[in-house]
């Protein structure tokens, strides 16, 4: 006796939920919503839905709420996000990572202590979406801003949210040294293998052979280097840290990702160590793929280059150092 409430105004029609529903209960409407997107609708009867919420977990647009029974809501939208609809393209998973970050802070009771730092990149407007204190930093500098903020107010939960151009290219020095100093901050690193905001140029994370606007014949590693594996690089530092790589392109990955992000913030809350979560994230627009093709591209092309999992844990208490 489950049910889902789909917000047809928020829906951008990426269709992730359609693929996710194990009972095939969601489909496209024949109409466009007021923003011009072909939105999705629930096609089944209430008794058909188990309330599993995989549709809502995969939705990048905070567009779905789910009930297992009328009195048991299984997916509630987080108070850690504002009501604003994001400007992200259909099928971009920045929205999923925003939501998970906000959910984690809410569940840990940390929203009132949170200070987030938006980067320059597609998520430059993250301060419009996170419902707590936010900075907007210069391109690549968020880890330094976070360092200043955290050192000055250790009671705050300070995190930087950065793309791969921002963090791995122009901000390479800032992230390396914040990690090496073991700043008690959290960094969420969105790896979508391109510069999204400026229109799909090659990033340090672009895959070999990948076509971008500045590698029109495919990335030539002899000329432009190999994909920079930031998590591996940071994990090689001697400083204790929590470093994990997850993904956001489907519900299964999102559930795992949430565990990583939760642990990252727990480590900061407990003053344990620097914590870093890389997220393989989709950019259908600049990859020239549909949202569902983009999901597959993460699985088939990105994951072999960027394996997911926990790369580094801080030494356990009393354990080896």
């Amino acid at each position, binding site marked *: 006796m489950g049910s889902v409430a789909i917000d047809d105004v928020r829906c951008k029609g990426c269709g992730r939920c359609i693929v996710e529903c194990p009972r095939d209960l969601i489909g496209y409407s024949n109409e466009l919503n007021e923003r011009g997107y072909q939105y999705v609708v629930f096609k089944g009867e209430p008794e058909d839905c188990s309330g599993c919420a995989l549709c809502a977990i995969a939705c990048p647009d905070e567009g779905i709420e789910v009930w297992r029974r009328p009195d048991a809501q299984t997916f509630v939208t987080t108070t850690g996000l504002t009501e604003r609809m994001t400007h992200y393209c259909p099928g971009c998973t920045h929205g999923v990572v925003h939501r998970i970050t906000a959910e984690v802070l809410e569940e840990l009771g940390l929203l*009132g202590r949170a200070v987030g730092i938006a980067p320059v990149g597609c998520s430059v407007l993250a301060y419009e979406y996170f*419902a*707590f*204190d936010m900075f907007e*930093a*210069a391109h690549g500098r968020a880890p330094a*801003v976070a360092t200043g903020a955290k*050192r*000055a107010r250790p009671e705050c939960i300070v995190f930087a949210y950065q793309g791969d151009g921002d963090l791995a290219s122009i901000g390479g020095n800032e992230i390396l040294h914040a990690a090496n*100093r073991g700043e008690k901050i959290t960094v969420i690193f969105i790896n979508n293998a391109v510069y999204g905001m400026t229109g799909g140029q090659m990033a340090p994370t672009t895959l070999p052979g990948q076509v971008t606007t500045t590698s029109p014949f495919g990335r030539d590693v002899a000329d432009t280097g190999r994909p920079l594996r930031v998590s591996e690089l940071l994990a090689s530092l001697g400083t204790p840290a929590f470093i994990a790589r997850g993904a956001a392109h489907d519900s299964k990955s999102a559930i795992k990702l949430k565990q990583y992000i939760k642990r990252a913030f727990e480590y900061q809350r407990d003053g344990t160590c620097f914590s870093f979560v890389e997220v393989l994230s989709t950019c259908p627009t600049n990859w020239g793929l549909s949202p569902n093709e983009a999901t597959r591209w993460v699985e088939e092309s990105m994951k072999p280059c960027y394996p997911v999992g926990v790369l580094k844990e801080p030494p356990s208490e009393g354990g080896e150092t």
Partner: protein
Amino acid sequence: MTTTTAPTTSEASTGAPPKLLMKGNEALAEAAIRAGCLHFFGYPITPQTEVPEYLVKRLPEVGGVFVQAESEVAAVNMVFGAAGVGVKCLTSSSSPGISLMAEGMSYIAACELPCVFINIMRAGPGLGGILPAQSDYHQATRGHGHGDYQVLVLAPSSVQEAADLMLLAFELAEKYRNPVMVCADGMIGQMMEPVVFHAEGAGPPMADNDWALTGCEGRERRIVNSLYLAPEELHAHNLALKEKYDRAARDEPRWELYGATEGYDLLVVSFGTMARIVKSAIDELTDEGLRVALFRPITLNPFPYAACRDAMDALPRDGKVLDVEMSMGQLITDVKLAAAGSREIAFMGTAGGVVPTPDEVAARIREELGAG
């Protein structure tokens, strides 16, 4: 100073705060603490090194924070972060490092965050040299980074004044919610002079405000941001900034008039270390019976245009104005603006760390006056 334990007013029995012998850089650092600044972020560079080396020992004594950043780019952004969460904070550098801080300064000014920069200027351009110069005058007063923003700039010409202006810098930073730069040179930074701190112990923290990011528990959330996508909004933001800079230009100019202030035939305009040397030259010339005065801007931005013009207008019709600077024609930009075409401005400048002697300045003044 080999000790970093803050000199206290143990001589309180005399009532007067003690006189200490300190290097300019150390006095700046100690004065920052007296102003209530407990957060320092910086990257090593000569000739300002004594600032971080002093603070790394001194800040822990007052519960402060010292971070050696990986670069000036990072240092200025750490300042951005600390200022944004509402603490008094400081960074210190010298010319090439200030260039790297340009981006961050633009963001900090755009976000209207208070903080203080020290620039112990060295000779440029490029890597230049480590000797004293004033060649960052345009950089300091005309902007470092992009956009319509300004930094208030204070220029001490003694160790005591360096300490005093540091207190003022923090006051102005908070008053205007804007970066303030104390701009000195290697000479002021390195020389030892007696200094008295009128403020005792670590000063007060930043006053409560409605903009600092402290966590939104129990209040509306806050945003520190410089992105305005709507042109009308960005225009309004720039107008608000301009209103602020106009207010500072009206209320904050500071200067000193020295020498034959009752009546002079030649007015020198000079600041910082160079102005000290000019003073010695003037003393020498006064003994010879020549009537010479010095106009010394203390605030380089806002430049005391009106006072400078008044000082020029007090000259006789055939009186002379001589701009003396340790750069190739930067201060003179503002002297000319002050004169607004009313007079010719003669120029004497050195570069590269060459510091003119009082005798050289005196010789040039005699020449201008036809008293050779």
